[in-house]
């Protein structure tokens, strides 16, 4: 769908992107992660053809990115805004027509969206008469009205109240189900795990990690488990099939331990060892969250650079 190859972008004072390559597959929800100032917005602007890279290429569905692709991309920038003095209906139609829609078609689709998001009464209102949340909703509609194949959202959830954020999230998922590929940037990790199929992590202009969320998390598994058991406290003597990392005990004879497997042992071996000694209530593998991976990678990367 979108293939970004060896992009370099240099600004006067600093380098925004150093040799960044990404592959976004069709139908994916792709998360572009990274701390503020990492280069996410620069990359997004290049894909939107707002700026051009110093070197490197972008391919859209196998074709080199060109003006004709603009109509197939929908873009919600981080800094949002609309013409304050313009009526909202007219403004939406204008923006859709800039994306190549006919007036009649734009009007038809707008009606559909306004009904769907309960905005019918806003048509004749000026933007300055709407609340911030309403403006954001309107802007989201403007982004997707021309039914783009690729929807690019820069920090889509910032500025929305929780209700609207949930609403927008559902809309994004629905659009994705209908076949739209979604690329969004964020520095908040909460939304990543439940939304994204794949991610790329950018820090200080370099891509430091990318791939499917599942694969990444699996690759960060380190055979660590939480075990909760009931009964008298087990004294570990070193012959158990794991290494004990942490131990907490409560008064009602419930104990939690954090362990790391040793040798070729598996979780089954752990159970076999424990079951004769106590009642095992829970055994759960500790898979690092994207958040933890993110922090770890960024810190490592920063340390490596300084």
């Amino acid at each position, binding site marked *: 769908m979108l293939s970004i190859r060896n992009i370099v972008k240099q600004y*006067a004072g600093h380098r925004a992107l150093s040799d960044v390559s990404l592959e976004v597959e069709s139908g994916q929800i792709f998360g572009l992660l990274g701390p503020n100032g990492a280069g996410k917005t620069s990359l997004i*602007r290049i894909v*939107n*053809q*707002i*700026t*051009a890279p*110093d070197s490197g290429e972008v391919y859209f569905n196998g074709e080199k990115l060109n003006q004709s692709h*603009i109509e197939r*991309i929908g*873009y919600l*920038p981080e*800094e*949002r*805004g*609309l*013409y*304050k*003095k*313009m009526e909202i209906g007219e403004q939406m139609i*204008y*923006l859709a*027509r*800039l*994306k190549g829609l006919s007036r009649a078609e734009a009007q038809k689709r707008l009606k559909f969206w306004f009904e769907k998001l309960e905005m019918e009464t806003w048509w004749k209102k000026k933007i300055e008469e709407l609340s911030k949340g309403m403006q954001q909703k309107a*802007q989201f509609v*403007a982004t997707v009205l021309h039914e783009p194949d690729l929807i690019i959202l820069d920090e889509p959830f910032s500025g929305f109240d929780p209700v609207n954020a949930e609403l927008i999230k559902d809309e994004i998922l629905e659009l994705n189900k209908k076949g739209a590929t979604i690329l969004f940037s964020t520095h908040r990790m909460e939304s990543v795990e439940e939304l994204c199929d794949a991610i790329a992590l950018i820090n200080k202009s370099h891509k430091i990690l990318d791939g499917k969320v599942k694969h990444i998390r699996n690759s960060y598994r380190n055979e660590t488990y939480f075990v909760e058991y009931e009964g008298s406290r087990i004294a570990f003597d070193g012959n158990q099939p794991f290494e004990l990392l942490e131990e907490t005990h409560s008064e009602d004879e419930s104990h939690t331990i954090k362990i790391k497997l040793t040798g070729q042992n598996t979780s089954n071996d752990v159970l076999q060892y424990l079951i004769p000694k106590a009642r095992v209530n829970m055994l759960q593998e500790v898979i690092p969250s994207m958040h933890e991976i993110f922090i770890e990678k960024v810190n490592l990367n920063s340390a490596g650079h300084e």
Partner: protein
Amino acid sequence: MNKVLLIIQREYLTRVRKKSFIIMLFVVPALIFVMGAVIKMVAENSDKLSSLQTVNVIDKSGSFANKFHDVTNVKFTYALTDLKSSKLLLKDSEGISILYIPANYMQKDSVQIFSKKKASIPLSEEIEKQMSDIAFSNNLISHHIDTALLSSIKRTNISVNAIEISDKGDKNANIGPNILIGIACAILIYLSLFIYGGQVMRGVIEEKTNRIIEVVISSVKPFQLMLGKIIGVGLVGLTQFSAWIILSVISTKIAGHAFSSPSSPMTNALAVLQTIPFGYIMGCFIFYFLSGYLFYAALFAAVGSAVDSETETQQFMFPITMPLLFTYILSVSVLFRAPDSPLAVWLSMIPFTAPVAMMVRIPFGPPDWQVAVSMCMMVIGFLFTTYVAARIYRVGVLMYGKKASYKELVKWFFYKE
């Protein structure tokens, strides 16, 4: 190109639909109409505005008796002879004044005029003139100069008629109306460049501060947006001017019809105006308005792109407004006196100053080759400023919260895509 049309459409319609635009559309011609009507009425009725004045002359010197002659609105009588009694009489009667000439009238300020209201300046001027003439001829008589011979010599009124020699034959070069038209055009161009250039600049700043710019330029190129805005606002200007011209012509026609009288002073003025080639001047005006506007609007757009709010525009506005202001001041003070001087010729060639300077010269009929060169320079000029502005604009509109300096602008200019 289709998208530029869309942008032009939006820029044009949002401005033309504004209440303030529609009000201005009618207020200005209405003002012109009212002013025209008032001037016309004053001109036609000036005679009636001042009532008949009777001046009673009490001449103690004996030199002036029966020598005053009546003029329009002023009659001279010699009925009353006693100053004191006639002064009492004045208290109840308007339109009568008493001119008292003492025996030693040569002494300064000794001649007095009494009336219920203060005597008007035209009246006292008329009396002064007649008295001087009478005293002068009295002197001639006292020096034994033949008065019969003297009165047979007529005074000759001489007025100079300026004729300009040109290839197309001699032409009447009555320059009064030319000066007026030249200065009026220069002022109009000067104001409109600022008004509409300023609108472009504010439009750019608005898009930047509203942050809609990023949405729009993900659909169109920055240059298309800038061009669309400049053309859209320019069309608003043209609409306004055409509407004003049409409405003014109609309203003055109506006014002329309503107040016309066969031999009014206005008819003479109109006759002079008719000798001026209005079509040619109008054409030049529209050309210099458009080319000057395109020249400056591009610069204004670049300034708008470089700042975050209107208050920051000052430092960049200065070099743009200076040449305009400079030519404007020169135009209304010096250029119209010497429309063919080297200074005027040079200023009308440089695109920065040409729109104003050339419009002052146009009514005086400058050589065609100079007009042609000036027009070519304007076209080259606005193509150049548009190119420069577009390069600054495309970078500037995406720069937030960064205070731009001139050095920065130069850097932006040299950025690759």
